[in-house]
């Protein structure tokens, strides 16, 4: 990125921290996909990336481009809004498919104590 040297130091530090933090949180969520045992448990893990992970990367983007262009850039909020509104649709679809499969195979109470 050729504009990178124009970024003031405070913004550069903040942006770097937020990007790394968001990426780490998303990575933890992805590791969860590997480490958790059942399908239902695994579905919890990616939510880390779509909430705090995404929010801090988008915040970094807002700070970065607001500082570079000397005006407030906030259209990243829309990404946040649309991802938050649409993730439940996918997750509900997946969970209902899994429930249907387990019920038809007679394993509904497997996760129950």
């Amino acid at each position: 990125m050729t504009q990178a040297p124009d970024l003031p130091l405070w913004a550069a530090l903040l942006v770097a921290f937020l990007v790394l933090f968001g990426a780490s949180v998303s990575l933890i969520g992805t590791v969860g996909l590997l480490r958790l045992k059942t399908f239902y448990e695994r579905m919890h893990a990616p939510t880390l990336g779509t909430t705090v992970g995404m929010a801090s990367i988008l915040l970094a983007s807002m700070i970065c481009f607001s500082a570079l262009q000397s005006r407030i850039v906030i259209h990243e909020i829309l990404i946040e809004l649309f991802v938050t509104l649409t993730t439940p649709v996918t997750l509900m679809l997946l969970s209902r498919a899994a429930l249907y499969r387990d019920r038809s195979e007679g394993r509904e109470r497997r996760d129950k104590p």
Partner: protein
Amino acid sequence: MTRWLPHPLLLPALVILWLVLQESLSLGHIVLGTAIALFALRGLAALKPEKVWIRFTSAIPRLTVMVLGDVVRSNIAVGRIILSRQNPRRRSGFIHVPLEMRSRYGLAVLGIIITATPGTLWMQYDSSRGELLVHVLDLVDEDAWIRLLKDRYERLLMEIFE
């Protein structure tokens, strides 16, 4: 008026969406955005959605702050579960939550809240019995979770939507 604007809140929302997307406040974009929003609303009217009832009370900011805090807190909790060595005593499971809320929009927002907080997953809602099936990653006390969902979210959502 009601024929043209069955959902008065959606028009400004769509216009603001357009302006944020264009990053502009020029008159041209306001006019264009309004035209597009009106066109989109006509399309929506064809779907005949249920009327939205929103009560603008202090419940909205209270719920927003509470959800944001819960999202951060549950992110930390779930991250800790993933990173720590697998604890054989930790168990996940389903809970049945009896809901009193019947507003479809309130239920939709509750669905978004439950899925957006890591650690809880919306599985299925039975509208005839008003019973919601939620999967919880770290299920210690079933009743505590039910109380949490009902007292924290459902009560405020009912203040807003019903």
